[in-house]
């Protein structure tokens, strides 16, 4: 019996990404993000989630993808990254899947040139490839500093 791990999977620009379920605190629908002065790029601003102020960032900037306007059907995933609770905006949340360890290919087998430190592995499920993100590596120390400053 091989090991399994549950992932919450979501879409950004039609591509499927996955995050380990235990890294996720909750998912909420998109609500208005209050922009902070002198903030640009990755950090979009902050939201008030039941009295807690959460910084919100958009992975499009990080993944070098075209920015799109937000709709009420966008999703904010509330994550814990190295002890910091913050929200990530994604296009659509699709499902919770269970991946067997043999369904996950680690990054060491990837062709050279496409390796990114925040990719934990590639999941294969029903002909779909799921980019599994390593939440703790998702933000560089510099980016974390910016968030801490915010």
């Amino acid at each position: 019996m091989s090991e399994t791990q549950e992932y919450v999977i979501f879409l950004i620009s039609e591509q499927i990404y996955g995050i380990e379920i235990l890294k996720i605190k909750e998912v909420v629908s998109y609500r208005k993000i209050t922009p902070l002065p002198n903030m640009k790029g990755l950090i979009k601003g902050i939201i008030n989630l039941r009295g807690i102020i959460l910084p919100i960032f958009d992975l499009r900037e990080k993944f070098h993808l075209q920015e799109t306007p937000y709709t009420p059907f966008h999703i904010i995933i509330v994550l814990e990254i190295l002890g910091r609770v913050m929200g990530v905006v994604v296009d659509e949340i699709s499902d919770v899947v269970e991946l067997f360890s043999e369904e996950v290919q680690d990054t060491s087998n990837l062709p050279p040139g496409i390796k990114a430190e925040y990719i934990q592995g590639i999941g294969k499920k029903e002909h779909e490839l799921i980019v599994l993100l390593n939440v703790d590596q998702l933000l560089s120390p510099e980016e974390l500093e910016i968030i801490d400053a915010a």
Partner: protein
Amino acid sequence: MTNGITKLLKRTGLRVKIFVATIIVVGVFTGVSLYQSLSSYTQSVLSLVAESSQSLLENTYSAIKYPMSIGDSKTVEKQLKDIKDHMEGVEVYISDFRQILHYASEESRIYTNIAHYLWEKETKEALADALKTGQPPEKSFTEIKDPDAFLITIKPLLNESSCHHCHGAGQKVLGAMVVKHPVKDVYAAITSTRNRLIMISVVGIIGMILVINFLFNRLVTKRIHWLAEKTSRVSAGDITVEVHDDSQDSIGWLTGNFNQMIRNIRDRMEYANSLKIGISDPFFMVDPDMKLTYINEAAAELMGSRVEEVLGKKTCREVFKSSVCDTGCPVKKAMETGEATIGSKVTIKDVKGREIPIVTSAAALRDSSGKILGGFEIIRDITKEVEAESVLRDSYLKEEEAKKKLQGRVEGLSDILAKISDGDFTVKAEASGENDAMDQLVQKTNKTVGHMEELVGQTKRAALTVVNGVRHISEGNQELSQRTQQQAATVEETSATVEQLVSNISQNTANTQRADSLSKEAVAVAMEGGETVEKTAQAMTGMAEGSRKIVEMMDLINEITFQTNLLSINAAVEAARAGEQGRGFAVVANEVRNLAKRSSEASKDIQNLVRDIMAQVNTGKEWVGQLENGFKKIVQTIKQVSDALSEVSLATQESSRGIEQIGQAVDEMGDVIEHNSSLVDDLAGATEVLNEKAGLLQVMTDKFTLHDHGEIEVEGFDFKKSLPVPKKERRGTKPPTTKSLREELVAQHPAEEKPEDLIEKELDEEFEEF
């Protein structure tokens, strides 16, 4: 300790308990009474001995009192010796107040201290007390020194006057007399009596215990044991048990109550079974392993198998092969949650593999403590409902087809009306034979066209008749100019022609009026059609509005689905956090997520469907617009026909005027025969006008294409050519003069020489005759 006893009591059987209790009660009771009787017996025996000892003491004292008072020691000693010889074991001692023996039944003990022969401290003290006070002790003393036992009686010897001569009066108490009475045999008797009593008691106790135990066993324990055995069978599930015990005691009542309870249970079970059997819908029950514990005939029949084939042998899954056996079995869900699931739609497969759509309701079965014993499910076969749904869909498609067909028919009718508007009356709209509103429209249109064709045909015929008349006039005119002598005949002919013309024209007028009323009728029919089309357009608008509302509601449903999916993912996250405890919750979250997905897909399908419907409605609206245009064209066409009829009417009026002029000409011809030439000219002019109008009429009516039977051909006649030629000939060859005509007439009547006015009068008369 107490706990241990309690536990032991709980473990042991009723018989043992009663046995032990009987032993304890009988043993204690008998032991106490035995002890009582033994001690009273011993006391009575000992008091007898004490009395005898006392009497011996008193007797001995009486016997030795006198010898002692006279100082006869020998007699005293003899007395004591006798006692020793005759009463075996009895010892008599007489001591002075210093407890020194002076006389004793055992001579060897004289001048020894009496205390040596008393063993018990109590006895010694009693002796000392008696010596001191002179009062005898209140009781005797028992001294036991195995194997000997003695009863000791003490009597102090007081200083009486008879003693003063020896002892003086100084001493109050002179000494004491002590009798030791052996009671060894008494004790032995007591012991043997006690032993015998104990033995009898033990035997009695055992006997009593056995009798009590036997009676208890017979009257209580056995019956309770029997009842217990029956109740254990009941608790094992056998409810056919009946206990027979007609005793009127508590156990009898208990048995009666037990039987009543069993009957009640049987009644309840019968009631439950009746309920099960009374359910006419397919119905089955399963145990927690999903094995069928009950299935009714309806369910077995639905699945194509028999009750005895499946009951208790197969699981629910093997029999029903439901579409949700793995994903969300309603019974399993009901057993897990304890809540009933009602109205879920699933598909099952019977033994032949036929898929049956059903609506099912399930609930858990539990005992009084709430433990789940199994579940049951009621099934409703909705095959017919599903078929009805497909029939509804078919009818929708049919309606669409009918709409298309209607459009085709409207277009066909529109084409035909376009041809009619171009004047072609040979066309005819085809009825589909369905006798619907469209067919009625076609029929009425055909009828209108028929009437119009008839009208135009009549108009044409009238026009040709006019042309004919004109030819006749022309011919008459020719004849008039060529042969003035035949003028009378010609005038006669002309008059007849005019008469016919008048009648034709009046007929023409009537026909025109009829055509006018027909065109009004056609307008009314077309208006009616227009109203129907308007109502159709309203219905289409209503459909569009309904579709728009559906779209609004779909937005709401999408919102709810989106939120549900979010909730389900949050639930999955929480379940994952809860670890193994959250496993069940995770399954629920997964189910909710699947539901949300399915809702989302269904709402997408509905949106597509609504979009299609809206497109169809728009198309329908366009068609209705086209239909409205078609009706407008019909009204226009009818108006055109009406206008044409007005023109016909106008022409007829003009014809009428022309005829009047002809009449006048004919009158003038009769009146002023001498002005024949000018009359002919006038006549020619009038004929020319008539000719023009008739030509106009024919040109007008030629616009209409009619069926062959409606055509009237006048062969070889060209009114445009034929008319002016004879006129020229007439003018050129025979210039008509009033004089020549008159001369001719005069020549015909040469004998009658009448004045000119008379001749004129005759001419008038002739003309009137003509």
